[in-house]
């Protein structure tokens, strides 16, 4: 049996967090609850985030979107500022697990679980999102790369809570793409995934490329060499093949039940070629 705490505001949440350093934070519970089956139960103390208003809601700020950490995937998808404004993230949310899980699971949970396969992580990386952490000493901001240290490991301090995700509004990225390779059409853990954002100049040449892979290393993999290889070129198959070679060299995938490292490496590169189909449309 666990003791369940339901704080009604951020101050109460932070006080509980300080008093119960071993407590688990739970938004939708879609990662925590299944994992507890294998661990023989939930932790002794569970702090629910559902009634903390500061963690909910999406607000538009100066050039950025502030997404409450407890916002559900379904709520994000339904919000046009995400659904239309951040297509790379929306595509990932649309193939995350299943409708029932999207109704429960939160973006903050997806980040804090820090799975190499977390579906929202590659899009948040290419969007250059930052996380807002609150503790009793105040608020701090980190980039996603600073926050996620490895599989299941984050920079969240003992008394801290992930409050929000800050997403700069992308300007001019006409080509945004997310693709997950799973072993079935829904409820599939990414074998490898790619988030891509390309800003093209007036002549269709790549002015800026941001590429990030999921399930291709201990954390999301960015590949500056692949991004650089596209600069100044149209996203044609030959340009993308050159970038794919860099990507295959950069990823650090593992062998597991779902696929071999070699497959992941090959497909991490292959997925870039899809951008040629999208840009020719």
């Amino acid at each position, binding site marked *: 049996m666990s003791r369940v705490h339901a704080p009604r505001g951020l101050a109460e949440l932070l006080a509980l967090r300080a008093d119960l350093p071993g407590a688990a934070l739970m938004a939708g519970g879609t990662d925590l609850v299944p994992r507890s089956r294998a661990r023989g139960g939930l932790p002794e103390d569970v702090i629910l985030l559902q009634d903390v208003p500061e963690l909910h809601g999406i607000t538009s700020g100066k050039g950025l979107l502030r997404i409450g950490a407890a916002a559900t995937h379904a709520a994000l998808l339904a919000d046009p500022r995400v659904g239309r404004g951040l297509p790379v993230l929306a595509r990932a949310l649309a193939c995350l697990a299943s409708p029932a899980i999207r109704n429960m699971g939160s973006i903050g949970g997806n980040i804090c679980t820090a799975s190499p396969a977390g579906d929202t992580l590659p899009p948040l990386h290419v969007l250059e999102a930052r996380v807002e952490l609150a503790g009793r000493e105040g608020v701090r901001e980190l980039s996603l790369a600073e926050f996620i240290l490895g599989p299941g490991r984050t920079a969240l301090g003992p008394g801290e809570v992930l409050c929000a995700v800050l997403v700069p509004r992308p300007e001019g990225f006409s080509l945004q793409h997310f693709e997950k390779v799973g*072993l*079935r*059409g829904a*409820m599939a853990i990414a074998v490898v995934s790619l988030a891509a954002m390309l800003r093209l100049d007036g002549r269709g040449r790549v002015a800026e490329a941001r590429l990030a892979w999921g399930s291709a290393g201990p954390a999301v993999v960015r590949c500056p060499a692949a991004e650089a290889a596209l600069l100044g070129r149209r996203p044609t198959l030959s340009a993308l093949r050159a970038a794919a070679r860099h990507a295959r060299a950069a990823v650090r995938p593992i062998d597991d039940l779902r696929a071999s490292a070699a497959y992941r490496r090959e*497909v991490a590169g292959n997925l870039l*070629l899809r951008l040629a189909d999208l840009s020719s449309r």
Partner: protein
Amino acid sequence: MPQEFSQIDRRHPRNDALPKALGLERFAADHYPEGLLWAGARRAGIPHARIRTVDVSAAAALPGVVRVLTRADVAGSNLQGIVHKDQPVLAGDKVRHCGDAVALVLAVDRETLARALSLVRLDLEPLPGVFDPAQALKKGAPLVHEGRRGGNVLVRASIRTGRGAAVLRECPVVVRGTFSTPMQAHAFIETENGTARLLPDGTLEMTVSTQAPFRDRFEIAQALGLDPMRIRVVAPYLGGGFGGKDGATVQCLLALAALHAGGRPVKMWWEREESMLAGYKRHAARLTYALGADRDGTLRALSCRIVMDSGAYAHLGGEVMALGMESAGGPYRIPHADIRGLCVYTNNPVAGAFRGFGAAQTAFAAERMMDRLAEKLGMDPLELRLRNALRRGDRNAAGVTMTASTGMAACLEALRAHPAYAAREAWKRAAPPHARRGAGVAAACIGVGYGRGLPDAATARIELTETGTFRIFNAVPDMGQGNASAFALIAAEALGQSPASFELVQPDTACCLPSGSSSAGRTTYTYGNALVRACGALRDRLLVRGAMALLADDTADLTLAPGAVRHVKSGRAVPLALLARMMILEDRTATAEFVMPVTPDATGGKGFVIGFPHLLFAYAAVLALSEVDELTGAVRVRRFVSATDGGRVLNPQGFEQQVAGALIQGMGWALSEDVLTREGRILNPDLSTYLVPTAADAPEVDCLAVDSVEETGPFGMKGIGEVNLNAALPSIGAAVQDACGARLDAAPLTPEKVLGARPRRARRTP
């Protein structure tokens, strides 16, 4: 002359559709008797070991634990098994797979149960194990069961027809191949469970998610040393079965627990991981084939070697292999054949019955060999199949003569005539970028019923209730295939009533009459036939009683109309409700038996205990339209078109559900389902790692029924729950090869295998 029906061959919603949609239908798992205890098994956790001691003291001392039982508490033979009894209820001296139960705990709640199970201390001496049949067959290999004459060979069987494989040398064209198919889990929604209670009069009352309530009584009684007639088994609708609840799952453990519960009810419900660990699986198989033909495509000779992995116990291993061997040559005329099979014990999870039952494994090999032959001869794969398709009076490769309805050619012709078949090339050309599309055809057959050697009967009981409606005592569990609804339809047709006037009692050994299991495509066929007879007897009696009420001299002037017996000439009628009040229960009740006919064929089969050969077969031809992603190797089946010979269709809705369900379950086995093990331990024991298809993966399915009547079936039907599953894997395999050239003989066809198997020239495309 075409028969006129009032109910048959029309679309009807299932009787259980609304109650299930509303959550009102109570499955076995929904039963929580007042004051229940929870029972659970401690599993061995290692694949092969000598048991030194099982120390239950710490578990027994835990507050809330009622009893902890071991082998010493089992009074009977301690052996379960449908045909071959070799599986202990509680292992006493040896552990043969990780899921073996070594202790049984009764506790007041699930949390206490889980703690107590972890407190049972096992002292096991690990033994070297055997984890694949090839290893198990080696000289000096560790023995799974000591003291058997055959060592690790459970069953060795052979079928030789004509001049056997020697004829291959005379064939101008010979193709060869070796295939493998994986272990598959049933993955039903409702995992194995039941409740049991020992009544003060000594009756053991059980409600179990089971496919065979009548046989369960004997299996439990023998294992535990009880009187089978003092065991009552109730079988509500099952939340899926697919063969995995045919034979003891929780039954013997649950009964044992109830014997030691001091009269309190006991509930046992396997967790998903336990279901994967201890439940039965489809046999993994390795198949080596050679198929010889004339230049015009006429099949002449077949050689085939089948090796199946039975896991630690027999279950129905021999029978599964028998059915696979019987259809090893597919639904084709092959005059000369040498078919050999080995079913082998290993320390892997236990294999058992699964929809498709051995024939699913051989269909993959047989059909892909046909594709290979078509390629070599430059023939169209469908035409090659049609040229060799079994017709009534032909003998199949196993020497079994098709004397009953044989619609294989009609299925292939129906498929060829379907617009999607004609349009397949255009569909392929319209592939989106970085995708390759392909079309594949497969044909399949499967024997209906248990086959010779195991009498297969059903006994129907129907009564006119006191209020003038009808009650059918269904004796064969409905695991989702819809047989219970089919029975209401059959009785409605036979008695000229509306289907709404029938109430269905689900199987209960206390009031329903002995019938075989829900399995083998025989459920609706056997019980339905018995029910038609029982309805005939009831109708005759109601007319006699009606004649008295209507003062009619001759029952020939009377007819059974909806809700009444009617005098045709005068139009006078007596309502059934009135008639019922004048009849005692015995008078209002009719019962009848039906025994499945068997083939008189003497064939060249050797080594089978039971299960070979069959008289009736269901047939199907399937077109799979699949898309392969060139960048990832992922395969998406976009559409199945199936043409099935299942005799006359009773309810098109039920027919379509069975066809589509079988194809999609087969698609799961083809693409992603694979119980992975390392040294006997399951690596993917839950549904986030063992991947069954989701609704998002389900393709469009067109279900055609060919014009066919099985003369011996109720209103002309025969069972079709399995046959389409057998065609899914080979048709997808053919479609994948057609799409990108990847010829994969080892299922499942995972993206990684497909990407790696594309020929060099295709690989350069991305």
